[in-house]
């Protein structure tokens, strides 16, 4: 039994245990401990993450259709598995205390929740371990249906969103299946190595078809344009910690498969040779532009949300764009940045969702127009959110800064100023909307009904604090993560970024976050010193405030939350005519019309008339 067998076995046991004891008191903790055990076993394979170990095989194989299906881990799988198990661990931890009790008392099945979460982790590990195209598809489907399960748990509205998800996801899966069977038909194998070697034989037209099919298949999961509509609502309606888990890693599985098939098997250089007819673009440019628009449009949609969970979920769609962009650019900086962004994003997105869920747990709402001023009541959650939004916005000293910087640099090195401009526009929207998020929840004036709110319980705060520490530490020492991404770059055949603990080395100027952050902190230190030495300060009550020249007392509260950034929204509003929603509705009504026509055919068509037609047809064949 290999280490990988052991990992998958424990993950499978976790699924069973979650279902059996999830509803009992302490059941959640047991499941959380099992995730920790999974993490420990994963660490036994950490040689994969540092290029000292090339591959770990599973001893489970399966013979079907003259193919031997195999499962194995390499650096890429290990990197994704680390994030997956981490997200599972922290989400389960978060759900194990008071949140779980409340969920159970309000009629939800906590066992089903833990089961769905564990099933997601297990199926993702199976996907990550896939050793050929067929096992990739099997894992892919498992992941899709496990996500569907956890999304549908809440019932009611969530059913509709989960339905939309599975419609997209299954259509995508069918595109994927078509693609990989086409590969099999053309090249005669599902095996990665064999396919990789014979890909050059493929004709350009076949290759185009494959690129379209695979991009559509994986793109649905990643929610890149134009398949982005399902994600935000479905994630937002998933029960709290489940949303944190899905937000952190779920749609990254699309990126994983994208890397495996389009980067490893087909190769970015081959994509760059595929000209788009009648334009000056090639397939790689096309993907890069899709990535950029995936960054921009969902980010500005996020800006318009009034629900904290939806706002975050829409950012999830947007951030995918950066990761894809970096990987498609495919130089040492870009791929390192894209990969690192996966890790960084998972850490702060999980934490942000947790902070929002903690606020919901205490106040009962995630409506950005019904919150405010909670900073004084929930300071630890505030700190978690502050760290998280700095990361999400991509500002120092948090880890999000490093990965975004690497992606920007890669665009400039690659000579793509327009893509760079697009990425920056996306970041601008991110900064604006995360400010809206923290302001509307934590800053400003406290509402009357929240006067008695307390900090979230320790079981919820502690995971957030640990994640905050991870975000900060990996921002201070990005080399910790760059070690892993370098191993991945080596494994998938990308140029490897030269790096050290503080950042990266380059002829055009390196990056050392230890210096940058130390100077930043020193600046803060000096500020603090000035503050402390500057003599007396007067504490002002939170409600002692004024606006528009009027003093506001505790009776007339004033918290500006609605209609944020009216000027900007006026400026860009014209660009949002929900054209993608329109596209989707158009598609659905086309199917609907066809369906009505077919039903009419079956209901009304005169059978004898049709038979007559068939006879005439057959006889005419004889005579002619």
């Amino acid at each position, binding site marked *: 039994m290999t280490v990988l067998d052991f990992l998958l076995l424990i993950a499978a046991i976790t699924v069973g245990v979650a279902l059996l004891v999830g509803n009992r008191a302490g059941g959640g903790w047991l499941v959380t401990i099992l995730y920790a055990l999974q993490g420990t076993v994963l660490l036994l394979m950490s040689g994969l993450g540092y290029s000292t170990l090339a591959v770990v095989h599973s001893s489970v194989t399966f*013979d*079907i*259709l003259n193919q031997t299906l195999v499962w194995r881990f390499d650096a890429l799988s290990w990197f994704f598995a680390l994030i997956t198990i981490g997200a599972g661990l922290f989400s389960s931890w978060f759900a194990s205390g008071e949140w779980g009790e409340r969920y159970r008392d309000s009629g939800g099945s906590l066992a089903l929740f833990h089961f769905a979460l564990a099933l997601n982790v297990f199926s993702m590990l199976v996907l990550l371990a896939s050793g050929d195209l067929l096992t990739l*598809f*099997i894992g892919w*489907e*498992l992941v899709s*249906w496990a996500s569907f399960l956890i999304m*549908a748990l809440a*019932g*009611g509205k969530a*059913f509709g969103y*989960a*339905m939309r998800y*599975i*419609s997209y996801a*299954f*259509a995508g899966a*069918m*595109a994927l*299946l*078509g693609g990989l*069977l*086409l590969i*099999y*038909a053309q090249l005669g194998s599902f095996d990665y190595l064999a396919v990789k070697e014979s890909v050059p034989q493929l004709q350009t037209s076949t290759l185009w078809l494959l690129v379209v099919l695979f991009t559509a298949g994986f793109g649905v999961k990643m929610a890149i344009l134009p398949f982005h509509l399902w994600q935000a609502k479905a994630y937002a309606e998933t029960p709290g910690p489940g949303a944190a888990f899905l937000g952190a890693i779920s749609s990254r599985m699309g990126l994983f498969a994208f890397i495996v098939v389009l980067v490893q098997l087909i190769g970015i250089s081959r994509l760059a040779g595929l000209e788009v007819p009648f334009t000056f673009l090639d397939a790689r440019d096309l993907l890069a532009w899709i990535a950029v628009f995936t960054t921009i449009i969902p980010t500005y949609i996020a800006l318009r949300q009034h629900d904290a969970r939806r706002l975050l979920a829409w950012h999830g769609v947007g951030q995918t764009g950066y990761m894809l962009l970096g990987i498609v650019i495919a130089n040492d900086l870009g791929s390192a940045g894209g990969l690192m962004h996966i890790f960084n994003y998972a850490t702060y997105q999980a934490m942000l969702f947790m902070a929002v869920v903690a606020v919901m747990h205490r106040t009962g709402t995630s409506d950005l127009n019904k919150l405010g001023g909670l900073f004084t009541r929930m300071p630890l959650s505030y700190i978690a959110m502050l760290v998280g939004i700095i990361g999400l916005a991509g500002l120092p000293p948090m880890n999000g800064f490093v990965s975004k910087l690497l992606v920007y640099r890669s665009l400039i090195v690659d000579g793509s100023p327009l893509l760079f401009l697009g990425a920056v526009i996306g970041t601008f929207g991110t900064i604006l909307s995360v400010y809206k998020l923290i302001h509307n929840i934590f800053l400003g004036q406290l509402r009357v009904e929240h006067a008695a709110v307390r900090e979230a319980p320790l079981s919820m705060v502690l995971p957030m604090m640990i994640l905050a520490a991870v975000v900060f530490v990996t921002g201070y020492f990005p080399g910790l993560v760059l070690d892993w991404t370098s191993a991945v770059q080596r494994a998938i055949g990308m140029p490897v970024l030269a790096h050290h603990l503080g950042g990266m080395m380059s002829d055009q100027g390196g990056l050392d976050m230890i210096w940058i952050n130390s100077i930043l902190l020193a600046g803060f230190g000096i500020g603090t010193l000035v503050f402390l030495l500057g003599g007396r300060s007067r504490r002002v009550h939170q409600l002692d405030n004024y606006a528009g020249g009027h003093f506001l007392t505790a009776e007339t509260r004033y918290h500006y939350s609605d209609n944020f950034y009216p000027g900007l929204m006026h400026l860009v509003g014209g660009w949002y005519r929900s054209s993608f929603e329109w596209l989707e509705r158009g598609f659905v009504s086309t*199917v*609907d019309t*066809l*369906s*009505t*026509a*077919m*039903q009419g*055919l*079956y*209901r009304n*068509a005169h*059978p*004898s008339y*049709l*038979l007559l*037609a*068939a*006879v005439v*047809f*057959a*006889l005419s*064949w*004889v005579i002619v």
Partner: protein
Amino acid sequence: MKLLALMVALPLLTAFLLSVINSISTFAARWAGPVVLLVTAAIGLSAWPHLGDTPQAVQWGGFQAPLGITLYADQLALLFALAITIGALLLWPGRGEDRTEEHPDDHSRNRLRRASLALLLAGTGSGLALSGDLFNIYVFYELLTVVSYGLIAGRGTSGSFAATLRYLVISGFGAALALAGIALVYQAAGTLNLAQLAQLAPERLNNSQGFAAFVLMLIGFGVKAELFPVNFWVPEVYATASSRVSALLAGVVSKLALLIIMRLLILVFHQPEALTVLLVLGVLGVASGELAAWRARDVNRLLAFSSIGQLGVMFIALSIPGNAGVLAALAVAVHHLFLKPSMFLLAERWGGSIKGLAGAAKTSPLGAALFVLLALSLIGVPPLPGFWAKLLVIMPLLALDQPLYYFAAFIVLAAAALEANYLFRVVLTLYDKAPAATPHKAHATVDLATAVFLGAGLVAAVFMLAPLAERFDFIAAQATDVSTYIQTVAPLSLESGSVQ
């Protein structure tokens, strides 16, 4: 191997004697049917391993091939003969129905009638599967059709009579067309024995007359196989007949018609145009069936339309030349054989509008869970058997590397996406937390047990994929081996070289 003839004769005989038995002992009449089916199933099963080495031919009445009634049994034929026998046993009509409105006298008479019909169905179905010449095939097919009328109309509602009438009209036309096709074949070849036709076909039927005969027979026999232009009876019949009858017709009888078309393709008709016709009609069936199912408002109609789609996939599979096509069609057919009856049984108590099913999972959690499993297998989610069946269809379609076959593969995949959408709309309705206004009826135990048994078969198949795939491969290879067929049935005419 003469015993195999009993698979046909025994149920037929019992069916005719049933009312006589009833006048002697009602108890005996009640159990005669199931016991006979058990015995015939046992006969079939005991013959199964022998047929692996050599297929068998039985000449009824002792006359040699062209004159006698020929039964030909290879594992393919036996598989379907067993399917209809065991199917009739498992789906014994009348069980699990609500009989509150029925008069007690009616009840015992109805039971007798249903038992006879079920036995006739099993006997004629086995005969159809095992027949070795076109004339017998036609006779058994007609008998089967008549039996189906009886079963469909069995509910006695006005809706079921209207549906039966529609079915009757289409079947009548179909029978006429099939007969015309058979006449064309006879005119060209002078024989109806399939073994002899197989010898003569390359010479005498590989022309436009042969092609016309094929199209006529395809459309004629296609009525039962839910082939595209002659399947307009399907939604009405399945919506009005009892679920067990629908399950038998959609699950088993349709496959028998498919088997005949498969045999004709293998033995007699080798025109590439024939395959194209199958492909086009199959694609139209998939597209029209799945699209119509998308808007279906009640479960039975939804299942009916989806069954049209599934049969379309089988026709597409048949249109793949050679061994791969037979293998693919066989895999999809056997998968459907387990799946559709199970779904229809679940639908028995879930009739009416789909919206009315809201929250039904609370009343019957097992039924709802089973429905999820079946839906997942139907749309082809790995590692369930439906996925591997789909794989077997699409892989050779793409390997042919022709635009029309690519298009067919696209249609099959797109149809699966559509299926996922409408089936999971039903699933989510079942699990809806806000229950519907009318209370749901729990499933009858016997229905649920049968459905679970069939579903368990699907799950068991997951663990036996490799041996199953090997077995199917073997059956397909045996079925496509034309020379073995000829030698088994008519060694004499081969040696003498003369045919008439």
